[in-house]
């Protein structure tokens, strides 16, 4: 199978919208406003934190907010000097969206949090653990959510059995990103 024909390409997965399990997207937006646009999206790997952050960016832009998103991970940690350079570029009318706040070193995070409180219109982060900022929402997954996403991505007329998807979900401990990567490989190898 050509990569472009694989139903589980990253661009197809990225086009999916976040699906809240026990709330609504509008409710999340309302809570974000209540928190004065300083909040954390909390959840384990592959639970939809980045997807929600990107969806919030679109929604905020539609509301007329300026946003600035950037990504931090373990290979490019945000240390103090890098943090200071970054903060000089943040405009006071911008909401900063930081994906991967866990990877920001503690001293840099303190600086970041303090500086954006006075020099930015907001700060929304994703994190594996609560406590960095007030929690906006906790992301989680279920086997049914995996089934729903897979059904949406698969070609019409095909389906994966619930047992197979349940096993896949368990093996990846609920990490939907890893589940979908495995399905990409499955299609590549056998379709």
């Amino acid at each position, binding site marked *: *199978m*050509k*990569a*472009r024909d*694989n139903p589980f*390409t*990253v*661009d197809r997965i*990225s086009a999916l919208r976040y699906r809240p399990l026990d709330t609504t997207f509008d409710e999340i937006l309302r809570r974000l406003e209540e928190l004065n646009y300083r909040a954390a999206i909390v959840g384990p790997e592959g639970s939809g934190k980045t997807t929600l952050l990107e969806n919030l960016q679109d929604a905020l832009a539609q509301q007329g907010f300026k946003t600035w998103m950037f990504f931090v991970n373990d290979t490019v940690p945000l240390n103090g000097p890098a943090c200071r350079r970054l903060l000089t570029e943040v405009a006071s009318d911008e909401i900063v969206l930081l994906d991967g706040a866990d990877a920001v070193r503690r001293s840099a995070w303190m600086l970041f949090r303090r500086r954006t409180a006075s020099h930015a219109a907001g700060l929304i982060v994703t994190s594996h653990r609560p406590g960095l900022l007030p929690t906006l929402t906790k992301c989680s997954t279920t086997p049914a959510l995996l089934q729903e996403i897979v059904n949406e991505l698969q070609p*019409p*007329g*095909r*389906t*994966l*059995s619930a047992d*197979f998807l349940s096993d896949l979900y368990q093996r990846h401990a609920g990490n939907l990103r890893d589940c979908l*990567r495995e399905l*990409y*490989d*499955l*299609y*590549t*190898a*056998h*379709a």
Partner: protein
Amino acid sequence: MDKLSIDLHEDKTAYAPRETVRGAIRWNLQTNPEHLKFSLIWYTSGKGTRDVGVVQTVTFDNPGSFGSRDFAVPLPDGPYSFSGKLVSLIWAIELTCMPGSETARREIVVSPTGSEVLLGDASMQGSHPWNEGNRGHSPLERILGARR
């Protein structure tokens, strides 16, 4: 209904590097857009993050609610259109209107042979645990079923 379209000259969809893509764009919209953006791009699609190259962009300001324009865009030397199991590189011409979400896109092939370059068939069959036990069907056939 809003409509954008891209017509390729003689409906040609395969081009050699450095060849010129000719055609026409047409639009028929309910409101006057501020801009129309015509782009020649390539992008990747596959298991990894999408990469995009914008080769040429032309913006038409205040184009009116309907109209058409001919275009002639020279292609660069590459990259060629190709597909492997992990990544494909796809060329396309896009027309978008702003504001709005209406978009038209035509894929083209850029290759010296006139068809997409196919990379080696690096089969991964047998690398998955559910490949064990042959019941006369491939693993995917066993896992996939018809949806009623």
